[in-house]
């Protein structure tokens, strides 16, 4: 797959900045797209297009456990999140809702770059450099392959690994 980069190479982008707490209390998740990242970049909702890639810094998604954070990115159109590192709850939540994420600690990916991404191998190419993401644990690959934890458990009824 390929995707255009929105670079926010800032450390500790927390879930309050991904989707402020005041907007999270609804089951209508499509509304999150209106407020995703608004305290960080009020233009984000106008810039983002379906299939784009978000690239963050260290400890992306720290803060609350709200699953609304990866959902907000997904409903905004983001297809993959790359960061130098992720907070652990964000990491789980993203996989559980079927949003692929890749951890690449050392990179010089530029804003607006077009990335070629191979999720299985974790290889990312920005036209100049090829990066290798740390591999996901098998259980996460299984969950992602089913499209998230809901379809995974609907099919398997319990964890099988």
């Amino acid at each position, binding site marked *: 797959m390929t995707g255009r980069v929105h670079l926010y190479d800032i*450390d*500790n982008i*927390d879930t*309050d*900045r991904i989707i*402020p*707490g*005041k907007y*999270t*209390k*609804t*089951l209508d998740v499509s509304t999150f797209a209106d407020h995703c990242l608004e*305290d960080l970049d009020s233009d984000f909702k106008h810039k983002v297009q379906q299939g784009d890639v978000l690239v963050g810094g*260290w*400890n992306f998604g*720290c*803060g*609350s*456990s*709200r*699953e*609304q954070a990866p959902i907000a990115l997904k409903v905004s159109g983001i297809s993959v999140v790359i960061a130098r*590192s992720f*907070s*652990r*709850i964000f990491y*789980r*939540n993203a996989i*559980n*809702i079927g949003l692929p994420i890749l951890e690449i600690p050392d990179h010089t990916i530029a804003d607006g770059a077009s990335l070629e991404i191979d999720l299985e191998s974790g290889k990312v190419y920005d036209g100049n450099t090829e990066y290798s993401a740390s591999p996901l*644990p098998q*259980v996460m690959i299984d969950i992602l392959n089913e499209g*998230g*934890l*809901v379809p995974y*458990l*609907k099919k398997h*009824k*319990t*964890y099988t*690994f």
Partner: protein
Amino acid sequence: MSLWQIFNMGQTISEKILSAHAGYDVKAGELAIVNVDSAMASDTTAPLTLKAFKEMGGTTPWNSEKTIFVIDHASPAPNERIANLHKLMREFARKTNSVLYDEGAGICHQIMVEEQHVKPGQLVIGADSHTVTYGALGAFSTGVGSTDLAAIMLTGKTWLKVPESIKIILKGKPNPGVTAKDIILEVVGKIGLNGATYKALEYSGSTLEYLTLGDRMTIANMAVEMGGKAGIIETSGLELPYHFEPVLPDSDAEYSQTLTIDVSSIRPKIAKPHSPENVCDIDDVLGTKIDMAFIGTCTNGRLEDLQLAASILKGKKLATGVRMLITPASRNVLNHAMADGTMNILSEAGATFIPPGCGPCVGTHLGVPGNNEIILSTANRNFPGRMGNPNASVYLASPAVVAASALTGVITDPESLDK
């Protein structure tokens, strides 16, 4: 001594608890499927949890008595949309006989401990990041998102990567005016926002004998501010109203890092805007003007916190131009604070009360600050927009510092006030 302790030497507290819940010996770095003792969701996460649970094919939780819902984050409901989400939780709990604490009962983490839904050595998972608070009881507890929690409601299990542990040795006696909040702010400042990601923090040392259950909850609570998966405090010196077997680490357990903190030398601490790791001694920010003082949250809204504030504010008035919000952590806290006169003292000083719950902590309602206002808060987070306004600045401190500062209108060391 249980079987796993005999056969598997050299384990941390986390490894011991997770081994007991996996049914076999696990070491840091391994993935394990573990049996969960209790599962909790608040009104921020429960609605999505129930939706995912239904979509997975779930009807009744694996164990209704161990499935706990708390209406605390936006309670009482500030609008029609949230009122309907609350209704959804009530209806599900009624239909499935799961446990529900309705509005006014208090903050989920306070209730889980008060109502004994968590005990030492247990594994408890909550759909809220501050679920780590139950490390105060020597339990392994951690936060997950809504879908992970739905999976637990369906299966009674979850998968976890057994974390490496960072050992924190707290030694010595805190000086007057220094509280558990100052100790944990010191730790957060040293470890940093990212320093314990994927890891557990395990606390031991001579300071523990001075720490109440409430103090331990304050310390365990902020593990997640360092990225920690758990923040477990050894149960030495902990008194509980029931009998329990302490889970202690083996002397040859392995840690990724050991940090010793001499508590007798620390000063009251402040986390400056806009990050909990932005920690300094109070001396660096003395005199900073404040607009609002907030005492509450799962970090510092307990009876002893309100009593500490009352001891400073007794017979006095808030500084002109300063407003003060008080949110007791639970109805139980509120009842005690009313019975012993604490609430009277605070009200006479000019404080405003908010019903037990999260109150203004997460910026949904009840006490959203205005632009460019400065808030001094006993909470655990001060990221931009945390209290609902990205143009406000939040400083974090102990209840003693917040009360002393509300009295003077500027950040003040409680020890410097005339007694």
